[in-house]
């Protein structure tokens, strides 16, 4: 072998064009660009969009309100789901479409324990922490159910999770004997609204905590390396001592935990549950967030922060549309248009074509 490498090492002096090119190639380019566009649009159309004010809420607590706060608040559940969905996608090359139904189950378990079987309670019957832990436990079990179907029985993730997608909301209703219990204890609503004296919505804190937990997990464990390795090449991973089935199962269980926290936030917002409507269609937004974040839905390499950003972009878009009084029935259509644009732009084929066009136009200029 020749010892000298002939590859010329490029100096750091890069042109603006090159910097731009590198930027557009970055995985996070699309979600960041989408966010910037949304911000610019709102700045130009109506800068008051960004106004944040301190108001008293119905309980007499001073709380922050404004569109930005609402984006951060309402995106919470989606962000949590997107995080778990990213891991599941990376390890198994498929998506869990049962997350909405599983949120209903987790929420139902928590409400059932808090109400102690009654239809309406003014004080919680079980310690809130215990109820939430139980919700997380049950949800992780359902995650494990999905995980076993996918990892050990090798069923396509979308088909495997279709089972819980179909049955989940009925199971949720069954847990509460088909009743619709109402929790009037304000403490129960702290997690979904505000803690007295703190003007920022609690879901924002919970989300930050979860993100922090994943940041730590990715830094101080091999979760990232193992899931990616298994997602890219399960055979080779096994020959390197990994247990691909176990790792796939683990990601589904982790998603189960994320789902439970999201479900808790959702039922805590209102203190009640509507089995058929709670977190409806949220699975599609969660998958979209993963895709928007530049993650391949076929599995393998992932960037969890891309998915988180993707989730916020989706919520930002929804809030913007609401602000301009788009009727809620028309909302999905508007959303679809934007999604089509984003997804098409981030498709590798399109990006390649675009860089090709740029190149040839540059060449044309040089010739002229």
């Amino acid at each position, binding site marked *: *072998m020749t010892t000298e490498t002939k590859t010329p090492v*490029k100096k750091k002096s890069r042109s603006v064009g090159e910097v731009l090119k590198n930027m557009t190639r970055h995985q996070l380019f699309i979600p960041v660009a989408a966010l910037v566009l949304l911000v610019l649009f709102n700045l130009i159309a109506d800068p008051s969009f960004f106004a944040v004010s301190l108001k008293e809420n119905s309980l007499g607590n001073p709380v922050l309100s404004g569109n930005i706060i609402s984006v951060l608040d309402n995106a919470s559940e989606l962000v949590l789901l997107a995080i778990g969905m990213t891991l599941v996608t990376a390890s198994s090359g498929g998506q869990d479409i049962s997350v909405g139904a599983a949120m209903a189950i987790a929420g139902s378990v928590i409400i059932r324990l808090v109400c102690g079987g009654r239809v309406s309670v003014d004080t919680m019957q079980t310690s809130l922490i215990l109820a939430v832990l139980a919700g997380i436990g049950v949800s992780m079990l359902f995650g494990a159910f999905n995980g076993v179907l996918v990892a050990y029985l090798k069923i396509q993730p979308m088909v495997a999770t279709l089972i819980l997608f179909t049955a989940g909301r009925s199971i949720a209703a069954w847990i509460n004997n088909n009743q619709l219990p109402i929790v009037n204890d304000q403490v129960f609503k702290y997690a979904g609204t505000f803690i007295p004296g703190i003007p920022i919505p609690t879901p924002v804190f919970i989300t930050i905590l979860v993100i922090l937990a994943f940041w730590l997990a990715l830094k101080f464990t*091999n979760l990232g390396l193992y899931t990616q390795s298994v997602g890219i090449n399960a055979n080779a991973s*096994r*020959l*390197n001592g990994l*247990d691909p089935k176990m790792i796939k199962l683990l990601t589904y269980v982790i998603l189960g935990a994320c789902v439970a926290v999201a479900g808790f936030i959702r039922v805590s917002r209102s203190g009640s549950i509507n089995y058929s409507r709670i977190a409806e269609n949220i699975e599609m937004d969660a998958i979209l967030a993963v895709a928007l974040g530049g993650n391949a839905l076929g599995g*393998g390499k992932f960037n969890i922060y891309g998915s988180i950003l993707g989730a916020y972009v989706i919520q930002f878009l929804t809030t913007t549309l609401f602000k301009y009084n788009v009727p809620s029935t028309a909302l999905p259509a508007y959303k679809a248009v934007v999604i089509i644009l984003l997804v098409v732009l981030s498709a590798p084929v399109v990006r390649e074509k675009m860089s090709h066009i740029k190149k040839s136009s540059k060449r044309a200029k040089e010739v002229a």
Partner: protein
Amino acid sequence: MQEGAVLELRGISKFFPGVKALQNVDFTLRAGEVHALMGENGAGKSTLIKCLTGVYPKDEGEIYMAGHDKPVTIRSPQDAQNIGISTVYQEITLCPNLTVAENMYIGRTKGNLTRWKRMNKGAGKILKDLGIPAAPGQQLSSCSIAVQQMVAIARAVDMDCKVLILDEPTSSLDESEVAKLFKLMRDLKARGVGIIFVTHFLDQVYEISDRITVLRDGQLVGEYVIEDMPRVQLVSKMLGKELGDISDIKKASDKAADMTSVPVLEAEQLASAAGIKPFDFSIHKGEVNGFTGLLGSGRSECVRAIFGADRVSGGTVKVNGKSVKIRKPLDAMKQGIGYLPEDRKLDGIIGDLSVRDNIILALQVMKGFFRPFSRAQAEAFADEYIKKLEIKTASSDTPINSLSGGNQQKCIVARWLLTDPVYLILDEPTRGIDVGTKTEIQKLVLELAGEGKSVTFISSETDEMLNTCSRLIVMRDRKVVGELKGEDLNQDMIMSTIAGGEAQ
């Protein structure tokens, strides 16, 4: 264009970011010749082929075809096919669930109707003409790999190709299949087809080729007529230097193995779910041994059983005299066993991950889920082995699948060396990689043995086994049929043992 040439490439260049993959390369193919394109991995063979077939756009240079006055432009493989350039790749790119005839005509029918009868008849005729043992109505997946490859060639021939490119066609074929393929190539030669033959097997180049073009580091080294080019000279042209002498090292390492000591690993009546007959095996400190036999004789299955890669269904294993249970790869790894699998792409590399992650993977798994290496530590490990094994990569951050085959293989070797194994199993480490790296790997094996490590080395090329192993276990039909060492360790004896003749 030159007299008799069907294809001429002039001054072809191709640049990738930071790399000059091809620089001003000329290539001439004459009608009715087999022209071998040789070079190490990363020399630019594949890039040249891809520029020629329109997979990559070339950055500079011109392509001339016989029958065209002006240089031809080729923008896609479809364009290439239309002007008569067909390619058959190493991996079969046909549809295994369609019939032979369907595969030959797919994508070529004009109009919407398929004339099944005519198609089958046409296919039958070509298959017969070329002497390919396949029926038109047979499902492709029921044919052997060799026949599938021939079907791909038949498809090309039927499309009236003037230039046929065979990219590593023989790497997954056994000897008799190679012979059949060569017969077909000679037939095509006689019909005036120009064949570009890309391969790593020197023997095959000398058997079938008329001319050789050698590339090195993206540049043309030269075009030679086969008769004027002795092997040693060809290899040194490809490497750009003289070959090191392997046999010297071997003699030194022969003494290192102490065959009377307690074996590093000893297996009795080991059997696995892969269906091999229970076998006994042992290896001593500093010993290099090997499994030999034809493709499918069970060589790989034996070592997979030792490593726990297939489900072990019986037998006992002792490591340093102590009884151990190896049920899964991690168990073997904990006993200090490393295993480089036969199929690099399928079982070896983690494609999209960086060279660094690929190198540290095995050691990281052994260290545990909750104890990841720091980035700096991982980088230090990767850089150490990139330097030690001379892995050609832009950085340790580069995804491993953008490296050439030989360099990918070195990364896998590095992965196991990093775990500092007592016993290393190398299953076909030299397959599909360039001559230079092959030699390097063999040297490395002997060095490791010199350091007191034990190595099991498997290769389809008997020469390599004779160079490195001091003991050979011969396999036939999934069972061990003999063991050769010392005086018996020669080509004839191996052949006769494989063939089943007890005496010569």
